[in-house]
């Protein structure tokens, strides 16, 4: 493994209070040195003049699809999509087939990733066996097999007393809960946000309350169990406020939102394009601006993509029958730079907090989220002025289900260093 020397980039490392031009030397996949000027003859030199150098971005909510749905995505292609999008660590949700509810799945993912992945691939275990909501998974075994948290993503745990047991057990094992918060007793089939737009389109809607009720319940259970709760992909003002109130009362609760929630709203559904169909669904315009504000003032902790690759056919049947979700790894950084940083909602430093520092803290990754000497040599290189057009046909991901095809973006991750290798993006 050759040394990698990143020269003359603008290093932004909020944890160390750094925002200045520095050289970074990576040796054996770790940060060796961070200095004004480093000369290392044998190293592979990356000229980072004009670029921003940050601790590697972490997406704590992706769907690897492998094992089980390799037709949609594999650990290899997902990791390549991550690298192309500027991520050096991705965290797979457990709703694979089989479900990651026992030691075999995380061990399989780790083994496969070691052979084929180009970035650090981690995995989450399920809260309940088979995502059934009926009995909790063998979390200690799962932890020994390498999981970094637990989740029943796609569903919530309907039964409050089972959720309490799960949180208590997870707290004992020091595992964070990555929560898909949704009141599962809003049982009527839904296809989008409930409101004026669902009435116009004649589609069954789901109210924001279905998420807000569940977030509120989960925070209260976290309060009595002492669990670490992370509410993922939240998209309403009230939901963020609930997290804020919980935190003020001492509950260990954090949250993230996704790029599609601060760039899109339900009005995009006007032509029944299933690339705008997701769970939770796109909400009203007013929620979009509220989310931007909360991303700025620090109440929202992280940005995730909820990368959810699907087959073309999954999005070309009747709208209500189409699968939920979109791919996001290759558009996330561009959307954040264009619609948050360029529009001056957040600073570059805040972006690094949202996409690297905080995800590392939420998952307890002590060697990530900062370029301290000895930490993982994960680096994201950003050209904040690069103008580009999203072209889904060039995605490394197998998924083509994106609503952002053809979008003009300003700012891109042009390369990453991960696992001791430099990967340049075109």
């Amino acid at each position: 493994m050759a040394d990698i020397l990143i020269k003359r980039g603008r290093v932004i490392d909020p944890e160390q209070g750094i925002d200045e031009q520095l050289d970074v030397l990576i040796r054996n996949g770790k940060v060796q040195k961070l200095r004004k000027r480093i000369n290392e003859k044998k190293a592979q030199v990356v000229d980072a003049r004009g670029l921003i150098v940050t601790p590697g971005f972490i997406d704590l909510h992706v769907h690897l699809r492998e094992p089980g749905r390799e037709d949609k995505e594999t650990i290899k292609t997902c990791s390549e999509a991550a690298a192309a999008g500027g991520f050096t660590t991705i965290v797979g949700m457990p709703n694979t087939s089989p479900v990651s509810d026992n030691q075999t799945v995380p061990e399989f993912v780790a083994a496969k990733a070691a052979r084929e992945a180009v970035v650090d691939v981690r995995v989450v275990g399920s809260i309940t066996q088979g995502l059934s909501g009926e009995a909790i998974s063998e979390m200690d075994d799962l932890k020994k097999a390498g999981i970094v948290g637990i989740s029943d993503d796609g569903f919530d745990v309907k039964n409050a007393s089972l959720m309490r047991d799960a949180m208590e057990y997870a707290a004992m094992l020091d595992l964070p809960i990555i929560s898909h918060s949704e009141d599962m007793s809003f049982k009527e089939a839904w296809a989008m946000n409930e409101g004026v737009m669902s009435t116009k389109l004649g589609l069954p809607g789901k109210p924001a309350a279905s998420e807000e009720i569940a977030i509120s319940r989960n925070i209260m259970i976290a309060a009595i169990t002492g669990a670490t709760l992370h509410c993922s992909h939240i998209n309403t003002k009230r939901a963020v406020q609930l997290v804020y109130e919980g935190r003020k009362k001492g509950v260990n609760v954090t949250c993230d939102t996704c790029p599609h929630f601060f760039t899109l709203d339900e009005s995009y559904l006007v032509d029944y394009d299933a690339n705008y169909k997701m769970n939770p669904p796109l909400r009203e315009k007013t929620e979009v601006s509220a989310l931007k504000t909360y991303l700025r003032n620090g109440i929202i902790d992280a940005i995730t993509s909820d990368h959810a690759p699907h087959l073309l056919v999954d999005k070309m049947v009747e709208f209500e029958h189409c699968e939920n979700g979109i791919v996001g790894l290759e558009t996330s950084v561009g959307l954040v730079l264009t619609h948050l940083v360029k529009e001056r909602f957040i600073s570059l430093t805040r972006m690094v907090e949202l996409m690297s520092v905080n995800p590392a803290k939420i998952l307890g990754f002590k060697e990530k989220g900062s370029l301290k000497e000895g930490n993982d040599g994960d680096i994201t290189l950003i050209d904040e002025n690069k103008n580009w057009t999203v072209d889904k046909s060039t995605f490394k991901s197998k998924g083509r289900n994106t609503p952002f095809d053809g979008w003009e973006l300003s700012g891109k991750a042009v390369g990453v260093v991960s696992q001791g290798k430099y990967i340049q993006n075109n």
Partner: protein
Amino acid sequence: MEKTLDQKVKEIVKENKLSVKNIIDIDALDKADIKKIFAVADFFREHFRRGKDKKITQLKGRSIINFFFESSTRTRTSFELAGKHLGADTINVTGASAVIKTKGETLIDTAKTLNSLQADLIILRHAKAGTPLLLTKWIEAPVISAGDGFHQHPTQTLIDVYTMQNEFGDLKNKKVTIVGDIKHSRVAGSLMRLLERYKATVVLTGPQTLMPENVEEAFNVTVDTNAEHAFKDSDVLYNIRVQKERGSGSHIPSLREYAHMYCINEARFALAKKNAIVMDAGPVNREIGIRSEVLDGLMSRVSTQVENGLFIRLAVLSLLIS
């Protein structure tokens, strides 16, 4: 020499070309299009009477496919008869969803097959909103929606507004009260849209649990859950059946209580204007939505709607694929 019926149809169709290729969204038809459809419907109303020879050759050699994913009596028969009167070959493809379930084919693949068989027009009824639009993106043949989910039923609305205009002329400021299960109604979905454009006053009544969310904001209508109050001074009482098959049952305690509160009976009907009419797109829920005394009474236009249904469909078929 007097012109033959065929020649007359050819002429009137030529004079009334529409600006659209498909009829899937009532909002996509401009007022001029609607006027043309109504003019051609008037023509057919004059010439198509029981006992007369109704066979004409306007659409001879054309194939029309009734692609129905939900059961239907009047809409399907009406389209089929209209097609046959015009000389087209009409085929019914039903139970197609079963084909899809058993053979794993998607709706689009089935539609593409029909398209490849050189169908000239596809009439689609589907339980899911937006499906007609999806179809138009994949096939060349024009598509008419015969109802999609809780969204729209555009030809039914043409029939309804045609019927109302024949009764009252200009609909401006006419009070149309729609009563019943609005939440699950595509008939109401397109009717509210078009009546808004004709500046009618639309009031919805029925249990709040059967009202679509934010419907007042969506369609410039008023909701008044008190039937007696809502019916007052109405020009039209339009009944929308409680669709138990769409799960309306769980939104109300019982049909018994529903009928107590909302059934159009003689006493309630008397609250409307003197010359008010009663309408219903059917199938009719006798004694629950409308009492037989009213349904079979002088001011009922339910049969007229069905009659006009044939004329409107003769008009749209001949205008879309001639």
